[in-house]
């Protein structure tokens, strides 16, 4: 039943916000309360789950039985981690808007709707329901980006919408094909699907369909061109949703469906997908170096980071999969941290152009410190969360092929290049007309950044808390798909 509450709380508050009159002074607070309630519930659920993982109840209301489609929500390690990420980030994303532009009710209502859809995506155990939540999550972000977006928001958002909608439809086709082409009666439950379809000739189509859908969402090179534009034009809170949580849907999908459904094809063709991901890492890292807009720079850096995640995951080695799990979480935290810093910066300067900024560190040492720690997390310095993730991912890639690992590893050099270059130009040097009156962070803003920074260091110091949750899920998916290389 708890899972039911979990998904209804954001939904109810969302509807409430849609219903009541616009009050810019309190709507943010209502949304914050809703997201905190959801976080509380999620924490409670996590405790319940961890005390007895196998006995965790499935939420299964008798909505409908049709064609074996069932409304089922449950948890395993993978779902739990993404649920925690989602519910942890939402309050911060909402809170980061305090002191920014006032928004209408619908803005927050859409955000909460999005939270509900994301929770659904990560916790459902029915593949058709997964598809429904998947597309449902697209609607709020579409409106957020198009209604509150900056320059050229309509065209850019529309492109994104169509692009990922097409991906979604291809996935739907694959789901139906899978369902229809396999004999016997079975449901749409994941577990049933894992037992289907071992015919390698059909697998390649299924693999391609799923992969394209997820590759667009993540995005993986060369399906990424919607991303930098959208990140730039969307309101920053929307960008946080996109980069911090929504793209994890794609990686989650790779994990849940591509790996277990198409093992034979991956054995033969996995290298192509890994090659695409690795190309993306280098490609995006190099492009990031010369980006002049902060949001675009972060967008390309994100592209490089998720390229590494998908490459490591697709090696289907134990370390690679474990690293992908870990890095999904780290990446979510770090990139939201970066965008929060961006938000605070733009609020004061009105510009995200790197060349217009400079010298902020001398006016705002507190801001500089937070920004620096988050940046260090993002370039994976040891004792930050993403070091653990990248270490495991690169180790997985190394087991797959040392040369590939060496090439992917170049990202740690490029990462330092573009991030430090950016930091230098934004924070150091002489002040400019935009930054001369830069005020340091206020209490509200510090409160938003503290959880991020604590999470970055905590996960870097004690990664076990997260790894232990991930391991059973990795073993489970691994037992279906994997070529564990055992060392």
């Amino acid at each position, binding site marked *: 039943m708890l899972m039911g509450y979990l998904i209804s709380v954001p939904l109810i508050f969302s509807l409430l916000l849609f219903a009541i009159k616009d009050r810019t002074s309190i709507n943010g607070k209502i949304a914050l309360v809703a997201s905190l309630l959801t976080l509380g519930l999620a924490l409670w659920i996590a405790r319940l789950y961890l005390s007895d993982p196998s006995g965790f109840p499935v939420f299964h209301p008798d909505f409908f039985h049709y064609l074996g489609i069932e409304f089922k929500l449950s948890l395993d390690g993978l779902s739990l981690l993404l649920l925690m990420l989602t519910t942890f980030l939402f309050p911060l994303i909402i809170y980061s808007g305090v002191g920014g532009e006032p928004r209408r009710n619908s803005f927050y209502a859409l955000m909460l709707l999005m939270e509900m859809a994301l929770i659904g995506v990560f916790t459902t155990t029915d593949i058709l329901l997964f598809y429904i939540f998947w597309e449902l999550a697209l609607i709020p972000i579409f409106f957020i980006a198009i209604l509150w977006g900056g320059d050229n928001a309509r065209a850019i958002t529309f492109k994104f919408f169509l692009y990922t909608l097409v991906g979604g439809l291809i996935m739907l086709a694959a789901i139906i094909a899978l369902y229809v082409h396999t004999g016997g009666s079975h449901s749409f439950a994941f577990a049933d699907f894992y037992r289907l379809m071992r015919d390698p000739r059909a697998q390649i189509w299924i693999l391609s369909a799923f992969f394209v859908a997820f590759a667009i969402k993540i995005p993986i090179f060369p399906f990424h061109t919607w991303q930098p534009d959208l990140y730039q034009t969307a309101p920053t809170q929307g960008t946080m949703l996109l980069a911090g949580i929504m793209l994890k849907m794609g990686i989650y999908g790779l994990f849940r469906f591509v790996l277990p459904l198409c093992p034979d094809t991956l054995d033969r063709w996995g290298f192509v997908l890994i090659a695409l991901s690795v190309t993306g890492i280098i490609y995006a890292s190099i492009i990031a170096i*010369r980006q002049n807009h902060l949001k675009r720079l972060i967008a390309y850096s994100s592209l490089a980071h998720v390229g590494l995640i998908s490459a490591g995951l697709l090696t289907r080695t134990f370390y690679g999969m*474990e690293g992908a799990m870990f890095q999904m979480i780290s990446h979510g935290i770090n990139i939201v941290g970066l965008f929060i810093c961006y938000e605070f910066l733009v609020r004061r300067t009105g510009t995200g152009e790197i060349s217009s900024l400079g010298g902020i560190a*001398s006016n705002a040492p507190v801001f500089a410190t937070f920004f620096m720690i988050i940046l260090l997390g993002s370039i994976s310095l040891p004792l930050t969360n993403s070091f653990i993730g990248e270490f495991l991912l690169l180790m997985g890639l190394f087991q797959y092929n040392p040369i590939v690992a060496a090439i992917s590893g170049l990202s740690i050099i490029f990462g330092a290049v573009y991030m430090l270059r950016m930091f230098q130009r934004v924070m150091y040097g002489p002040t400019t007309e935009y930054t001369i009156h830069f005020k340091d962070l206020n209490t509200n803003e510090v409160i938003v950044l503290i959880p991020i920074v604590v999470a970055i260091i905590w996960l870097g110091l004690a990664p076990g808390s997260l790894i232990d949750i991930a391991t059973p899920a990795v073993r489970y998916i691994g037992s279906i798909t994997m070529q564990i290389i055992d060392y």
Partner: protein
Amino acid sequence: MAEYIWLVPLLPLIGFIFIGLNLKRLKGINAGLIASVTVASAFLFSLLLFFTYDNQSGGRTIELFKWIEVHRLSVQFSFLVDHLSILMLLIVTGIGTSIHIYSIGYMKGDGGFNRFFSYMNLFVFFMLILVLGANYLILFIGWEGVGLCSYLLIGFWFKNHAYNDAAKKAFIMNRIGDLGFLLALFFLVREFGSVSYFEVFGKASQLPSGTTVLTLITMLLFTGAIGKSAQIPLFTWLPDAMAGPTPVSALIHAATMVTAGIYMIARSNLLFLLSPVTMATIVAVGLATALVAGSIAIYQQDIKKVLAYSTVSQLGLMFVALGTGTFAAAMFHLTTHAFFKALLFLGAGSVIHALHGEQDIRRMGGLKIKIPFTFLLFLIGTLAISGIPPFAGFFSKDAILLGAFQFGPVTGILTTAAALMTAIYMFRLLFKVFYGIPRFAENASHPVHESPASMTWTMSLLAILSIVGGFFGLPHFLGGSDRFAAYLSPVLATPIEGTRSESINLLSEWMLVIIPLILVIGLVAYSWSRFVKRANERGDALGNGWMVRWVSNKFYLDELYEAMIQKPVMWLSTFLHEKIEIGIIDKLVNQTGTLVVWIGKNIRYIQAGNVGYYLFYMVISIIIILFFNLFK
């Protein structure tokens, strides 16, 4: 005692956090005092440990907590206490304490005083993690952590973009080496299933010498050392790193951080001894670096740059010692070098302080009378580094030369040449700064003055160590018992018999001492006549040939890197973004969309609302269907 070893890094960490949280609240020199006290306490603890640690059990591993545990890989957060780490502890905390105290005087009045000390404490913390770690991954935490602090401290005066560039360059060049290091770790995990020293060395020692994978591992580890310890081809960041405040140069870029590569290889001596190819490479790289950097040092005009290149050159000599298998000699030189190079840098700082920021030696001269105490200390440092007995450098350099000659005569002669260069550039520096006529403008409001006591006293301590430090390792033929090597012997393996050409007899040992000594004295005399007596007749430059131009411009290496790496990457960045990203990939995506729109546009004419057309399509369709059914 050893089980409380975690206190040692914890103290500076607490200092860092406390100062960091109270950046605005701490007034006056309080931050400096707090920082110094934490490091000094760590030093006292290390001293106690040094005297009480009993080596019966070999090294002791202190496990703190499980850090990473995935699948078969289990990495403990654990410290290793043995003679090598105790030695490094003493150096780091000892030199660290003196430089902290010195900095109180040096940084007084700087707007970033508190920030400076928080970074310094953080640096000491990471450096201690580096030397204490009981496995390669903990070492790597410190390894990257000190890189970060180096970055922060080089760019300490961050309003100046030239300094920031230097800081960034240091970090990135280090990261290049770090990638090699990481790959070495993956190989270690693959081959030995662990990254802990004990397990790796235990398993590696059962492999035959020269195994390919060991060569690979050691080569990759050495790549890491090249970055961190500024060797060819990654040494150009170190001279630029002099942008940082001078105490930083003394602590990080002379005494401690840059020697991390030496420490790491000495720590892994077992692996390296099993890889003769890597050992030979280390000798070659170290020797080339020592010669190149030594020759560049002769032509520098910036007091700190001379010292920086000198550091690179001395590090090269330490690598020669490592490569020839005389690990104890490398560690010995590391230790004495920490004393006298820190002293020299602090002396340089004192000179710069006295001249209110002047660093160009062309605008110095005659300072012997103005700041006699600094002069005396600088002189001691110079004598020590040049290898003049009985100062510290003499003994450690002798140990390295001995190893080099045992490795081979050519190596020996070249190493001697590199060591002799020290005398030239150091005495040139000494003479140009302290002798001759003053070449600086002194005005009444800013008189040239001796540094405050906190600075001179700490320098005196280092000076004493530079004088007596060598006696810790007094070799046998001079009547000593080489206590230094004996102390490290439980940790450092001795080279396998047969890798050395022949053992050297007593006569040759004496020759090795006397011949270089005569040459050094000759060179000092030459420098005296060249830079003091006849300084004016021949002007400043040492010559103007193409060789000189090449050398004084550090062989145009920076320009080469810019042309070969930086520019192409920048070009590629623009190319990928404009031509590939926008020009091809995105265009394709957009054209797919346009195509759909185009199809829609054209197809809609079919549904134009004309009933006649609809009937026509219907009839045609029926005919086609019938037609198909007919032939089925």
